[in-house]
Structure formats: structure tokens, C-alpha cells
């Protein structure tokens, strides 16, 4: 991250009674970054966002925006704006007045507000709908109004609370790219809060995966997918096969792992302590299908399903776990049929060593 961070969390903790929603979190978010907080419900991501907006105050630690401590700063004085999951549009105001609300509060002159509102209506492609009331709009249009309203004051950071949750699948994908376009064009920081890994992977430059109030892993989507730091992250982001085992030998940057129940020594790129119990995480598309019939782990294809762009199969290994296989594009045709006996192996560069 370059220059001074826009948002800084310093050991922030927030408790609700006995529940610690945010547990000693330290975090920096850069200006103009598209950042995602990803995690299951109850992981503390919403609380973290509300701490930035000022709707909650930390029990311990500090939150800085642009280097300024936000401890005594009420929500209405903070340079961030939020798009609520429910959109929270004011039902008694038309679209233009909803979008202009923040500008009126800022005391801007009337003609400037009108100019800015029509600019925003054009930006979110709602020209001509300024006089509609929120209940006369479709779900997608309401979402756009909420977004325009959050952008109106040109905040340093826009907080997006599950922005796509209320949209249908097709609209969701369009909107993802729309949000990315807006973020690029405006250069405003976006912080996405979501439980949907696809959303976070597609849109964000960096993702913080949260679990039980803590940030489990922070990094670029590719790093999080390919180098998950824990079983939780590996399992939460995409599909993953987990093999438990013990490191038997380490030799020149390669660990040899004895997989539990399977009489095989698997070489894996990466170094661990000899004798350590570990878990190997392997993505379904990286599992290798042996063509020779005397190598690899034997198993039976339980089922095989066609998903259009992918073919997926589940293979029950002899004395081992149920393993998922995935093949894309032309490779999909090579997927074995249900009931076929197959042999699988783990390519050394495909597995990631995780603490068990």
C-alpha cells in the first residue's frame, strides 16, 4: 500500500455483552482501493463496517480515517457514506430528493444540488426517474438510487453492505461489473461487505476473510484462493479437498506427507516440521486423473454432473475421503462416467500445506 492509509484499525475490539463481535482487529485500507470483507454471517464483518460509519463505537482500540481519530466523531461528520443492505431509501422523498439529501445537509446551493443530482442520475443510468418515489421503482433501480445517494457527497470511502443480496442472479452479475466500472472511474474507495465469495473474488482488489471477529487472512483474491492460510479460508473460498496427514520427511523445499489411511507418500511443495500433523488442501480442478492404472489413489466415481462450463464429479477413495473433481472447457469431456474405477493423484504444486 502506498502513502498514508485511508482507514486504519488499531487493535479494535467491539463486544455485545458476552459476544465479541470484533476481536483485536488491526487493518489498513488504502485510498481508492476496492476492498472486501468476506465471511459467514456473525463473523463480525457488518460490525466492522458499522464501526467505520460510526454507528458503533469500539470498546478498545482506535479507528483513524485519513489519520484522524474517529473516537468522538459522530456518523454525520465522517467522510464515508454507506449503502445499506435494505437500501434505506426515504419513502416520503422522490428519487432526486433522496440522492440530494446529503447535499442539502451539506448546505450546498440549490442549483449545484440539481446539477449534481442529474449527474448522478446519469451515472447510475436512472435519467428521467428523478420524480419517482422509491416504491415506484424496481429492486434494481432502488439499488442504483441507494448507490447514487451514497456517492453524492463524494466520500473518501463508500461502504457497501451486501449490495447485491436483494438482486436476482442475472442482475447481480451485471451490477458487479457496474460497481467495478464506477469504482475505477470515480477513484473512490469501496468497501464491500459480503458473505458471497464470488462477489468478493470478482470485485475486490484485496479481501479480508473474517471468522469469529478476527481477520483470518488478508490478501489479493488470487493469493487467498491459491494460498489459503487455514482450513477455514480454504473451505470458505471455493471448493476444496482436504487430506489429513503427517510430514514424514523434508527434502529441498519439498515435504513428503503420509496421508492418513492411504498408503502413499505425497510430495508437496513447501516446508514443514517433520512429524507435524498437517492438512493438504487441493482444489477440485487441480486433482490429477491418472491414465496409467497402477499409480495414484484408487477410487470409484460416485456421481458426475454437467454444469455447462464445468463437469464436476465426486470420487470415493478407497480407505480415504470423498474427493471432488472439476474439469473445464474441452477437458470436461474427459471426465469419467459414474461408476468408473479411477486413480487420482495430487500434483506436488497443487497441494497447500495447512496446519491440521
Amino acid at each position, binding site marked *: 500500500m502506498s502513502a498514508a492509509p485511508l482507514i486504519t484499525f488499531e487493535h479494535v475490539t467491539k463486544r455485545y455483552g458476552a459476544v465479541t463481535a470484533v476481536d483485536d482487529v488491526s487493518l489498513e485500507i488504502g485510498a481508492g482501493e476496492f476492498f472486501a470483507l468476506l465471511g459467514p454471517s456473525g463473523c463480525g464483518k457488518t460490525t466492522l463496517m458499522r464501526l467505520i460509519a460510526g454507528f458503533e463505537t469500539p470498546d478498545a482500540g482506535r479507528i483513524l480515517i485519513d489519520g484522524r481519530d474517529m473516537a468522538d466523531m459522530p*456518523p454525520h461528520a465522517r467522510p464515508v*457514506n*454507506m449503502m*445499506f443492505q*435494505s437500501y*434505506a431509501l*426515504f419513502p416520503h422523498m422522490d428519487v432526486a430528493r433522496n440522492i440530494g*439529501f446529503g447535499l442539502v445537509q451539506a448546505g450546498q446551493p440549490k442549483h449545484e444540488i440539481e446539477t449534481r443530482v442529474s449527474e448522478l442520475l446519469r451515472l447510475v443510468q436512472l435519467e428521467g426517474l428523478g420524480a419517482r418515489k422509491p416504491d415506484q421503482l424496481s429492486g434494481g433501480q432502488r439499488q442504483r438510487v441507494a448507490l447514487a445517494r451514497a456517492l453524492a457527497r463524494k466520500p473518501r470511502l463508500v461502504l457497501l453492505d451486501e449490495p447485491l443480496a436483494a438482486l436476482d442472479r442475472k442482475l447481480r452479475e451485471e451490477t458487479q461489473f457496474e460497481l467495478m466500472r464506477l469504482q475505477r472511474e470515480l477513484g473512490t474507495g469501496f468497501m464491500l461487505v459480503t458473505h458471497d465469495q464470488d462477489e468478493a473474488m470478482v470485485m475486490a482488489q484485496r479481501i479480508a476473510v473474517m471468522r469469529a471477529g478476527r481477520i483470518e487472512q488478508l490478501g489479493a483474491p488470487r493469493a487467498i484462493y491459491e494460498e489459503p492460510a487455514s482450513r477455514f479460508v480454504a473451505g470458505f473460498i471455493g471448493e476444496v479437498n482436504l487430506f489429513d496427514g503427517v510430514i514424514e520427511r523434508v527434502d529441498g523445499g519439498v515435504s513428503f506427507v503420509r496421508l492418513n489411511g492411504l498408503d502413499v507418500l505425497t510430495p508437496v511443495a513447501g516446508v514443514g516440521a517433520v512429524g507435524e500433523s498437517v492438512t493438504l488442501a487441493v482444489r477440485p480442478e487441480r486433482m490429477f486423473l491418472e491414465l496409467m492404472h497402477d499409480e495414484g489413489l484408487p477410487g470409484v466415481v460416485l456421481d458426475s454432473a454437467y454444469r455447462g462450463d464445468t463437469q464436476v464429479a465426486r470420487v470415493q477413495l478407497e480407505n480415504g475421503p470423498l474427493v471432488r473433481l472439476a474439469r473445464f472447457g474441452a477437458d470436461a469431456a474427459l471426465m469419467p462416467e459414474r461408476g468408473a474405477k479411477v486413480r487420482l493423484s495430487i500434483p506436488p504444486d497443487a497441494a497447500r500445506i495447512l496446519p491440521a
Partner: protein
Amino acid sequence: MSARRSAAERLVLGAPWAWLAVFFLIPFLIVVKISLSQAALAQPPYTPAFDLADGWEAMVGRLGELSFAAYAGLAEDWLYAQAYLSSLRMALISTAFTLAVAYPMAYAMARAPEHLRPVLLVLAIAPFWTSFLIRVYAWITILKDEGLLNQALLSLGLISEPLHIFATDGAVVIGIVYSYLPFMVLPLYNAIARQPPELREAAADLGASPTAAFWRITVPLSGPGILAGCLLVFIPAIGEFVIPDLLGGSDTLMIGRTLWVEFFDNRDWPAASAVAVVLLALLVVPMALYERSQMAEAQP
């Protein structure tokens, strides 16, 4: 099957209409009929009296005896118009004060912790558990010159001689505000409590201070509750009799008292009925206008 269900449906839908017909429409028609009669020293004290025993033709024959004399009397005597205007004024003032007192109460209730709200609601309607009459009497002991209020203010040194509140229009306003407060609080509470809290958060997020958010979001969104509460207070207040009679002075002019005087002191039932019918007409017109504006808003 479906025919039987529609019959059951009609019965259910018809019940409120039947209720209104028996307990509102028929009594109202009787009052209208009496207002079109002439006062008489008789039992009942007006003519013509319709008696079902006389037979249908006799009753139809007497329709010609009806007259608008009582209404003409209302128009001729300035006192009636004054009573109406005075009632209107008192009801408006009282409604405004009730709103001013009830809104902060309803707001506090709606924003109270969720587990406390049922208790607060019960407390708000608790006064209904004792007799209305006794509660109004109690205000006499509070408001009169040597009453509790004056004693308290005197002993605190805030005033040097007693305030004359009892037997003034002010006492009537206090009595009405007190008596009708729950009718205002409940619809207001309802209108405020059902506003999603994130609307206020959104307002704060967009730079509105708590005061600005209150006036721009909370108050406009409680508009229907404000209107309902004001109607619930204003309509009964305008015809109020007990409170002005007990707390008001001899010069407190309200239509409820005029009605009482016509009925019981003057035994002029037609005049009293005419007063009641005109009052109803005066109340129905603004309500019908309100209904129409609601309808127009519902279908833009």
C-alpha cells in the same frame, strides 16, 4: 362449496355494516327526525310523534308536519354560531397541546428498549382503568386556587399569589389534553415505532445531525399517525361536555353545554337535535375531505 364460502364471507363483511346500521344510522335518523319536529309540552316533548301502532298510512300522513323551524332557530340566534366557533377554537388549541405533549412521549416509548415497550404501552393506557369522571374531578383539586398546583408553586416561591386556572378556558384545555392524551400517544407511537431504524442511520450517514434527521425523516414519516391522533382528539373534543362543565367557568362556551341546556333545561328536543346534526355535518365535511385526499394519494 364456493357459494357457501361466499355466503360466509358476505356475513363477515356484512357484520360491521349491520353494526353501523343498528347503532349509528338508525339512532342518527331518529335524531334527524326529532330535529325536524316541533317542541311540545307532551310525552315525548315534540310533535309529530310517530308510533308504529298507528299504522303506516298515519305515519306517512304526518311527514307533512315536519319543519325546519329548529334549524332556522339555530341560524337566527348568534349564540349558536358563537358556541360552535368557541368549541372549534377550544378543540383546535387542545389538539395542538395534546400533540405537543404526546409526541415526545410517543417518541420516548418507540425508542425505549424493546422489552420495556409493552410496559410503557400499558402505562400509557392505565388511566383508562379508573372512571373518566373521577379523574376529571381530581383535576379540580389540583387546579383550584388553593389546590395542589398552586400550593406547590407557592411553597417553591415561583409565584407569590395563586394562579387562577380553575374555572377558565385554560383549565378546560388542560382537562382535554390530559383526558385524550392516550388517543394521541398510541397512533403516534405506532407511526414512530414502525419506522426502520436504518432510515435514521442513513440520514446520519448523509450528514444529518440528530435534530435534522428528526425533522426531515422521523416527523414526516409519522404524518399519518399525527393526522390520526389529531382526528381522534379533535372530534370528541369539539363536542366535549363533561370537561368544560366541571373545569370550565360560567363563560366557557362549548357546543356540548349548549346541547345539554337545550335538552335538559329548555326541554327543546328539536333544537338540541338540530345542534347535534349540524355538529355532525361540520365534522363529516373535513373528514370526507381528508378521506378523499388519502384516496388521491394512494392512486397517483
